């Protein structure tokens, strides 16, 4: 496994190869990271800038954070190969409603990008002492994967058994169990910091799904094993009430329908946006200019049905994308041909395991090892995206405060600093 990762790093980033011992906690845009370096964090999604795949979480009051630092915003950025699962289906950030509780795997950004050092104790360790009012865990800003509770617990093979319902239907007591035999999941064994027994609040906004129907709180019954999406986790000021329960899927059919629906949305959107992939290497044919072969890996988390549509004889268009996965213009794509598709075992985090080598008649500047692509099948038609998702000519949204950067450049360091 380790050997494989080493090979992968060599393939994807020559820069990486120069570093003797890269910090496994750091994830870069141009290389798949070390699985050992990820940190698990969870919280509630409170701000989303879906076009640039950034946002803010409010971390859980789960005991891992000093209570002086509770509720400070945790800014994050999805890695180019970072993925989301929502309702146990692939999703993009704009599919996930604000307020959804997410489980994430986080990495450090490149060095220099995580300088958040609030005092760790003492009087000034409170919110007022945090100089920029940011979560103490903010340095873990790069997200490899987000999952809502539904997806997270389903992936683990867990569900929640309703242990009790308040007579007035304002709270529900649930216990974490294994789906296969309904046996209890021990909190310590699970190791993810999630309490195995929780008392959640219900309110009139709580949605209940049963079969193909919209159900009601009355349909809840003790003994049912459900999937729940939380919100307001731990915010109700008491350890007795663990959060608000926003959605409950009572039975398997309800869960299947929810997943299918999300999957359809995702697939439709991704055909317009293109499948993301990281370029592993480019090989140019001598004397043929920019013509050559392009080898890339599809990212993890993509619906397998979409990846399976890429076959050797299919017409494929590749467009250079930024690490945010934004492309510049709908007409930027270059055709690829003669696809050779291979699968690798135990791919690194973010890697789907599907590697494609393709002939490219003319590569673009953005077609370089470590850079990101969006890929479309020609048969999907010309991609059309909302204007704000395109980088060219400008970001149309008035999100920018202060002067706009010129030519996408930051100010040059002073002469002395450069030396």
């Amino acid at each position: 496994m380790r050997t494989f990762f080493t090979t992968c790093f060599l393939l994807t980033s020559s820069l990486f190869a120069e570093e003797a011992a890269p910090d496994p906690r750091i994830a870069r845009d141009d290389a798949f990271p070390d699985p050992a370096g990820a940190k698990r964090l969870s919280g509630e999604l409170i701000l989303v800038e879906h076009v640039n795949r950034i946002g803010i979480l409010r971390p859980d009051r789960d005991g891992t954070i000093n209570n002086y630092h509770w509720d400070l915003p945790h800014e994050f950025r999805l890695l180019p190969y970072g993925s989301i699962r929502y309702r146990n289906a692939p999703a993009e950030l704009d599919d996930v409603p604000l307020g959804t509780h997410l489980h994430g795997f986080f990495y450090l950004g490149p060095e220099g990008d995580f300088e958040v050092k609030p005092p760790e104790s003492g009087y000034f360790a409170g919110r007022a002492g945090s100089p920029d009012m940011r979560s103490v865990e903010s340095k873990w800003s790069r997200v490899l994967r987000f999952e809502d509770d539904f997806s997270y617990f389903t992936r683990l093979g867990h569900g929640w058994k309703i242990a009790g319902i308040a007579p007035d239907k304002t709270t529900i007591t649930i216990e974490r169990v294994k789906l296969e035999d309904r046996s209890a999941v021990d909190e310590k064994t699970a190791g993810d910091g999630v309490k195995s027994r929780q008392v959640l609040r219900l309110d009139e906004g709580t949605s209940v799904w049963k079969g193909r129907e919209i159900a009601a709180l009355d349909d809840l019954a003790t003994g049912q094993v459900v999937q729940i999406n939380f919100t307001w986790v731990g915010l109700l000021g008491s350890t007795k009430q663990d959060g608000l329960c926003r959605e409950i899927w009572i039975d398997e059919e309800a869960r299947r329908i929810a997943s299918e629906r999300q999957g359809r949305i995702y697939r439709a959107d991704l055909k317009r946006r293109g499948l993301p992939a990281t370029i592993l290497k480019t090989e140019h044919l001598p004397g043929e200019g920019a013509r050559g072969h392009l080898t890339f890996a599809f990212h993890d988390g993509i619906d397998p049905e979409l990846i399976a549509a890429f076959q050797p004889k299919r017409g494929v268009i590749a467009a250079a994308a930024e690490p945010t996965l934004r492309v510049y213009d709908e007409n930027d794509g270059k055709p690829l041909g003669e696809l050779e598709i291979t699968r690798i075992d135990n791919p690194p985090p973010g890697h789907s395991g599907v590697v494609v080598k393709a002939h490219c008649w003319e590569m673009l500047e953005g077609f370089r090892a470590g850079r990101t692509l969006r890929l479309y099948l020609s048969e999907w038609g010309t991609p059309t995206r909302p204007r704000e998702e395109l980088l060219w000519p400008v970001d149309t949204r008035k999100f920018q405060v202060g002067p706009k950067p010129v030519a996408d450049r930051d100010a040059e360091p002073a002469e002395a600093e450069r030396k």
Partner: protein
Amino acid sequence: MLPSTQLPRSLPRFILAALLFSSQLQAVELEAYLKEHCLRCHGPEKDKGDFRIDTLSRDFASGADAELWFEVVTRIGAGEMPPEEEPQPPAEVSDQVMEKIAALIREGEKARMASRAPVDHFRLSREEYSHTIYDLLGVRYDTRAPGAFTDDPDWHGFERLGSELSLSPSHVEKYLKAATEIIDLAFPDTEPFRLKNTRDALAIDWHNGDKRKELDAIGITPRIRMLIWPGLQLSYLRPDGGYRQSAGLYRARLQVSGLAPEGGRPPHLVLYSKELDRTIFEADVLAPEKEPVILEFETFLPAGRYDISISNPVPGPSNAQRPGREGGFVFTTLDDPKSRAPWQRKMTDDEGQPLYPFLIFDWIEWEGPLERPEDLRKREGLFPDKDANPEAVRAALTRFAERAWRRPVTAGEIARYEAIVAAETAAGSPFRAAYKTALIGLLASKHFAYLAEGSPGEHRTQLTGNELASRLSYFLWSSMPDDTLRDAARDGSLTTPEGLRAQVRRMMEDPRIARFTEAFPRQWLHLKKVGMFPPDEKLYPDYDRWLETSMINEPIEFFAQVFRHDLPLPEFLDSDWTMLNPRLAAHYGIPAPKSADFEKVALLPGHRRGGLLTQAAILSLTSDGTRHRPVHRGVWLSEVILGKTPPPPPPNVPAIEPNPVTAPKATIRMKLAAHNTDANCAACHAKIDPLGLAFDHYDAIGRWRTEEVVADGTGANPPVDASGTLPDGRAFKDAEEFKQLLGSDPEVFARAFTEKLAVYALRRAMTVDDHDELDALVEQSSSSQHRLRSLIEAFIVSDLFQSR
């Protein structure tokens, strides 16, 4: 003609070559042939078609009936005469008669060319005019600019024959206009607006040029460079003097990097002005990204506002659509991902190695108009103060006239110009304007525009010291004599062999000799014809303007190298080296020299490029836009290398048709063979064609090939057959063997070369009267293996050079 196998081997080789085309040794009696086959219908008894041959003038030197004699040749050549019903002479006999008449016409033509009046006048070619003006006044005047002088007519490539360079009213008008501009440049009324400007990469980056303030604010401007990818052309490189920009000589320095893909062409930098319709500067550039070079050049720019663009016209991906544009990205370094837009066409691979030839431009600095001390010195003493007395004015005019007219002047000649000054001032003109009018008159005079040899009313054959000085300086420098040469003429030392030799050696070491080593090979080899028929873009997609320029420069650089090192003339026929720049090396498939300039490159046998004959320029100047032309190659070689001009083809010869779609593919050689079934044609072609077919391994733009690509037809492309037999029976299998055969007879080529040298120097055709002198020179130079400089020196001190 003697059967070639019986020719004695001891016969001088140039006589052998003369046998190829000369009529003198032909046994046929012209008059007897005419009587037997022509005069019955075109003589005293019958004048069919109202045409009599017996009354045609036999005085070919007068040229009275030259056209009609030409008609006789063409009718015989076309097989029309004698008519079918009449007894037919053997084809060989008709062939000899045609050659005889053709030779007589040529001799007559040459005699007329060489006819000597008491005074011979030779108008300066426009190139000589430019050089003379510069040497006289330190002013660059571009005689090739739009609206300036017209192209000089040439005679067999030479653009300086007195009898060809006539004068028309439009010339007079242009001379007057030029003289006015030149005098204004030399002696401007107001101090010209002098500028020193630098235009950086952001100035030509049209997309980001308006963001200078913002880019300055983030401190990036000093690092901004401009990547000029293949086919990109950017404007705004002008000196930017706007409407105030004064005419004059400008110096430009520009910093640029040039990166080429492994084994590929280097990028090519071209500065061009659409308004001036000329390339201001061009060069291949090879310099690493982090080690840019500074290129420097000087150019004459007229007054006014016009743009200058920079481009890199080399093949590369299309610049159409968005991948061919930069968007809002600013370029700093290749390893900075923000330098290039990800959607742009990729210029380097992932290791940073270039995929295409591209330039990275930093800045251009313009300075001018220049006033160099050496140029100002040339004007000293030529313009008196406004308060100068008449004697001082006269002295200044005399100084000007003696230099401009390249001889002593009389007081009477100067009086006319003094009178102009007086008349103009009397009419109210300021002295400066009046004096300038006189200078314009002096410069527009025939004494400036014409070299004169001889004295009115005198039939002098020997040149005077001044005439010799001019002949010498226009031969070697394409310009007027300098002070040293004039002094040598004045004190008589020039007319002594030692004095003349000393001057020749001095002049050969002077930088101005480059004018000879450029102009002579260009004219001798007919290099003006390179690109005359632009090769078809579909058939020859690799052909571009820079290749054409590089092609033309190869023989010129080659000649200069032979001259510099005083190499033997046979080097021109075959050599184990040549002069190549990367563009030409790529064209030949030879490893490129390290620098972007022309360099001496050692050739291996497999390169097949030794000597002049297999250089792309020579091979392409005889081709048309679609295919090689063996017959034209043969004619060129015969004329330029062997010094023999074959008779012209008869009119209305049908062209060789393209290969029919349904017929097997055939080479031009095969078609020629089928074409020349007419005995009259075949006899002549048998002598010309082998000289051209020897080079069939080279296509229309001089690329090596082993099979001839035939567009239409069935079957495979036919293999090339470049074998042949010389008229003396010696066989060759290809161009290399052909070159060896030519090289084994160095006198033949030396004789032809010496004659070309003499035509260039003496500005007239050579006639039978000159043959003995030329033969003697060849014989003399054989002792030094016909070394070029030695030959030139011997020629200059010979009677031939010093006689009228």
